[in-house]
């Protein structure tokens, strides 16, 4: 069966002045329809870059992303996104923010109002329609972000560290609600996170990336029953496994840096030795 979203050897280089940054290296994995996939990796490894490429906001240097078999070259109306810093327009009310996507699709005013109100109700923000984002807490802002992403009726929802700018208790409640949304809507979710427990709590499948240039280190199916129990022995076991993988990555990176530095010291030493008159 063909995956809903497929990443095929996605490689990304960033060119800055004289330096070239190798962000992603031949990243390949698939996301099935209705699946909840979490991408974890060491910080700064290029997780968010990968998500932006899936969203069509950035293009891969080589390789491709396919959505329903078609190459993604620009943002797709059926792929929506939830942002880390919420990405709300401060001059728009809660309702107007949720309406934004439908407004861009030129939906009639009545329709977008009704649809947006329905999704606001779904995320528990009925009665807040006419407030401005600055009047809301972080958790409430992200609810608006989620409602906005859902309002355009996407097939895929991408979430970029969606719970990391929110206090832990609120984040926990939101994660539970997202689990429910996922079950009820049957939409495909892809979440980028550095929080392993979060990934294990939400995902059907966890993709572990290596440090830069990010490669797929491991793809772990999570067959645990929902709602997930963090105290469950398998949960703890998997958490330890992934943590171990990531630590290994971190150590590799440190070692690599150390070796490179030692090489530099050595070559400097050699050069000095050559310069010195005998």
């Amino acid at each position, binding site marked *: 069966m063909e995956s809903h979203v497929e990443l095929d050897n996605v490689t990304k280089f960033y060119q800055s002045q004289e330096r070239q940054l190798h962000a992603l290296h031949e990243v390949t994995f698939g996301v099935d329809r209705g699946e909840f996939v979490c991408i974890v990796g060491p910080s700064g490894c290029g997780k968010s870059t990968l998500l932006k490429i899936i969203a069509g906001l950035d293009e891969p240097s080589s390789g491709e992303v396919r959505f329903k078999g078609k190459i993604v070259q620009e943002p797709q109306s059926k792929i929506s996104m939830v942002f880390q810093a919420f990405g709300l327009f401060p001059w728009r009310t809660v309702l107007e923010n949720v309406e*934004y996507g439908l407004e861009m699709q030129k939906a009639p005013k009545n329709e977008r109002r009704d649809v947006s109100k329905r999704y606001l109700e779904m995320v528990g923000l009925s009665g807040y329609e006419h407030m401005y984002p600055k009047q809301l807490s972080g958790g409430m802002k992200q609810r608006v972000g989620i409602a906005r992403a859902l309002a355009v009726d996407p097939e895929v929802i991408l979430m970029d560290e969606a719970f990391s700018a929110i206090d832990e208790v609120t984040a926990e409640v939101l994660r539970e609600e997202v689990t429910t949304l996922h079950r009820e809507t049957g939409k495909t979710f892809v979440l980028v996170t550095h929080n392993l427990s979060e990934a294990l709590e939400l995902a059907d499948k966890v993709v572990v990336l290596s440090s830069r240039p990010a490669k797929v280190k491991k793809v772990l199916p999570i067959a645990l029953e929902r709602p997930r129990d963090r105290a469950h022995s398998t949960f703890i076991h998997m958490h330890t496994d992934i943590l171990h993988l990531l630590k290994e990555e971190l150590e590799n990176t440190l070692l690599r840096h150390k070796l490179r530095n030692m090489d530099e010291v050595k070559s400097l030493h050699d050069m000095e030795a050559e310069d010195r008159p005998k």
Partner: protein
Amino acid sequence: MSVSRQKAPAVSLTNKIFSGQKITEHLWMVPLACGVAGWEIATRLNLFPGSHLPTFSSVLAVFFVSIQDPAFLLRIAHSFLTLICGLVLAFSIALPTAFVAGSNNGFDGTMTPLVMLFGALPDLSFLPLLVLWFGAGNAAAITMAAVAAFFPIYFTLREGTRNIPRELFEVTSVFKADRFSTFTKMVLPALSPYMFSGLRLAYDFDWEIIIAVEIATRMTGIGSFIQGTVSTGSMANGFAAILAIALVAITVDRVFFRSLESWTRKWA
């Protein structure tokens, strides 16, 4: 009993604080009133020659006559419209340039030093040139006002563009906004607080420029009118004109810019 006794002074204390706030809000009226009174007394006592400083009461009297004179009002309207044209011209050039400069480092590196270079020059030094090119008329005055207004508008808008979070551009892309609606529904509202403060600065600044241009070139307007009252010795008319300008400038500032700012204060 003892509880209510304790509460009573607390209430009156907050009352005092609140009424105190109101007093400080209107404190500016005291020196103003003193100044006007001092003026009136000094001129009545003939401490100044009447040809140099008329009494305040005579200025007020002339003012109320003048604002019923269509020719007088037309002069104010002429100066005001020249100013507005200059502002609009400056804004329509500054908005796209500042937006590109704020979002593109390469362009910013070329454009901004040039703007700073011209901004550092005294704006009015261009006036003789403008008069030479356009003649002593509306075109020169409007261009002069635009040159003076460009600097504050450009820098506030450039700063505003730099402060638009990257994420908001991603939001417009994800939801497939076209270029036009990205500009009108994201960039413009995001820039609006900067836009309003830049325009306000430029507006205040341009009043000085317009008056100076009119005095220097003797073109129609309220500035040349004031100049005329000095040469004809009808100083009360000059002061009445200054009073009228002050009223127009303050009214626009309060009514127009304050309402724009109160809109941004709702959400920003």
